[in-house]
């Protein structure tokens, strides 16, 4: 579920070229597309805050809070936080996922994407082993895209676990499998949960350092393993009581991955869209119109066309107004 990057680019070019106003290069499109996607993505949080103050209808498809949640759900992640070890012992300080490979302290999110290509052997096999950067990103829970002979596979047509890519259907020998992996980038921390064996999972409460000392000093509200709390500082979480050194799960929002419209140059010098090296907009399909309008708005600036800017800005304003009534 995403917005096809080629559809957006072609639509933008179509509108721009309708009256021979100008042309937007793929490089410009990729930069502006990234900017627009971020813009739309960041509005979700303020919109959600506004909509939570307004009574909602629980009719299907009409609840705006649910609608917003659906758009945000694409970027929601739930992963294990890894403890920081001191002298070989786990501490109650945890590194959040999405900040790089916690098991390797030298790794600082240097790898943002990796591609690994496999050729289906004869006889064909279902499993393929990842190596190098692709393996690192896979272990970090990177977002995969798999292309079989240039055609992107649905996410239920394969599974990726650590070093192993497993296809559901046997491919044809000689076909090329391209696996693209993109690093997840942490955006906002959600709730933290503590699981210890078969005990009920508990949500951790976030407090600031001032509160922490008051809480630790209070007999009634002192944190326990039933009601743990945490402080979030320097991209790390410190949990109280300090006896908790494992079993922390994190829900968080990651940033959208930048859209890429990539191409190959044809015999006549024309740009031909290359799906296997491109990356779609991750936004919800309902954002397609909004994305195109916003790109057009920036395109108007690039090609110095006030008319485009005006029309696009009006459309965006009208849409926003409708969403907030």
């Amino acid at each position: 579920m995403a917005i096809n990057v080629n559809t957006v680019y072609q639509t933008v070019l179509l509108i721009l070229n309708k009256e021979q106003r100008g042309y937007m290069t793929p490089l410009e499109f990729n930069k502006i597309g990234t900017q627009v996607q971020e813009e739309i993505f960041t509005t979700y949080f303020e919109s959600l805050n506004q909509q939570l103050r307004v009574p909602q209808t629980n009719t299907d498809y009409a609840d705006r809070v649910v609608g917003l949640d659906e758009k945000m759900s694409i970027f929601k992640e739930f992963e294990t936080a890894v403890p920081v070890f001191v002298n070989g012992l786990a501490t109650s300080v945890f590194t959040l996922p999405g900040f790089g490979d916690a098991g390797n302290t030298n790794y600082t999110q240097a790898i943002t994407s990796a591609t690994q290509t496999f050729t289906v052997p004869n006889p064909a096999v279902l499993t393929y082993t990842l190596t190098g950067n692709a393996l690192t990103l896979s272990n970090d829970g990177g977002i995969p895209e798999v292309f079989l002979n240039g055609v992107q596979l649905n996410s239920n047509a394969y599974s990726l676990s650590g070093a192993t890519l497993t296809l559901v259907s046997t491919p044809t020998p000689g076909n090329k499998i391209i696996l693209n992996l993109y690093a997840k980038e942490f955006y906002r921390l959600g709730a933290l949960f503590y699981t210890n064996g078969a005990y009920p999972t508990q949500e951790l409460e976030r407090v600031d350092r001032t509160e922490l000392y008051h809480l630790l000093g209070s007999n009634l509200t002192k944190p326990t393993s039933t009601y743990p709390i945490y402080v979030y500082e320097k991209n790390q979480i410190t949990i109280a009581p300090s006896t908790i050194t494992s079993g922390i799960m994190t829900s968080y929002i990651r940033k959208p991955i930048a859209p890429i419209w990539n191409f190959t140059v044809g015999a006549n010098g024309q740009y031909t869209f290359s799906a296997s090296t491109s990356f779609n907009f991750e936004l919800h399909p309902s954002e397609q119109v909004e994305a195109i309008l916003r790109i057009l708005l920036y395109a108007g600036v690039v090609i110095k066309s006030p008319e485009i800017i005006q029309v696009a800005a009006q459309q965006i304003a009208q849409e926003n107004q409708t969403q907030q009534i």
Partner: protein
Amino acid sequence: MPIPNGGLITETNRQYYAGAQQFYLTTGGNNLTFTSTFDTNLIFGSSDPSNGQYGLNNFVVSISANAQVWTELTPAQSVVNAVANQNGGVASANITTTVAVAGLRVGMTIYGAGITGNPTAAKITIVNGVNITLDKTIAMAGAATTPVTFQFDEPFTMVGNIITVADTIPNTTYLKIHLKDSAVQANRGSYEYTKLHDVIDNFLIAYVGAGKLIPSVKRTDVIFHAKRGLQEFSYDTLKSIRSQELTIPISLSLAIPQDYVNYVRFSFIDSRGAQHTIYPANALTTNPYSNPVQDNLGTPTQDSFDSNLTGTSQTEAAWAANDPRNVSGAYVQTNEINGIFGRSFYDGAYGQRYGLNPETSQKNGWFTINERNGTFDFTSELKNRLIVVEYISDGNAYDLDAKIPKLAEDALYAHISHSILASTAQTPEYIVQRYKKERSAKLRNAKIRLSNIKLDEIIQVMRGQSKWIKY
């Protein structure tokens, strides 16, 4: 319904009554895990009965081939015998056995009379046929071969109510987790209560959220108000379930219980087991909080560390030596004015003593609370008596206490709601008042419910109304 089926009861009848949970393994194996679903959390010290920590366990794990004859899972159950080749007394982490031995597993500890240099119990890390690698070096001295045994020092472990059995369990075996009697008894009657953490979770789900009167609240605030509510309810609404049976020593003093907040009743137990209330000596005597040693001018004196010198209480000494019959008037000595109230035999004879003073006319004994020493002090006739101290705590002393009777659960929700709304800025006053009334009404209901008034019992009491009252 003996099997939990989605209701509030999550234990089977067997778990509740017999304290047993059974598993059947069609396919055995090692390092298998078993999840306890008792309401009682498992407590684990050691799975080796010879280990001092074993006494901490509140459960036993047993296995059986037929679910009739059970054998407790101990290190002895995991023993595997082997014969090791000697290595010339040279310490090494690698040993060999004369033949490959089935049943050897990683994690087993090696034992044997011929082993030297094994003070910390070496454990198997790799088994490859006759070649065994240990995590520490040992030496095999003496004869060409040495009989050795391997066993799991801890045949099972438990973390978070999940038991992991290290040893191999055969196919078609039954495994049983059996709670000890004390754990079973502690859990009985627990359906009468709701645990405080359930109350807190339920409150956050049902009363807090967008579109509700409390849109957001810190969980620590809810915990605070829930615990404070439990404390308040413990003082005047909830049943007093705390009591201790004690014998009064020759010192006539007993330490105040650790979780004591206030007393309900002191009573001594007679030879027939009947209770006789012991009364407080409120107006009769006192336990001074401080007994400074005075100089000739009456000024308190200090030691070389600037602390006040204190002596023993003369008041307490006199009260301890007093015959309580002096208080009740039961003590009669002719021709003398005696007793605390100056009564004599002749008072009655002259008609000057009209009836009894009911407050002091009792022979069950007196007690005082000595805040200086943290003791309950009793009068001398109670020496060596068996007594029962009934008292209230605040419901927060132990984790097991953190529960509320279901009859008062709604009152606690109302208490938390009111406390949060009343302490939240910009809450309209009418909302605060509404919740104040709701809290009050629900607390009253809870008190009535918990006062346990039963119609049949009232009828039995009221049958006394047909008695003639004679003057």
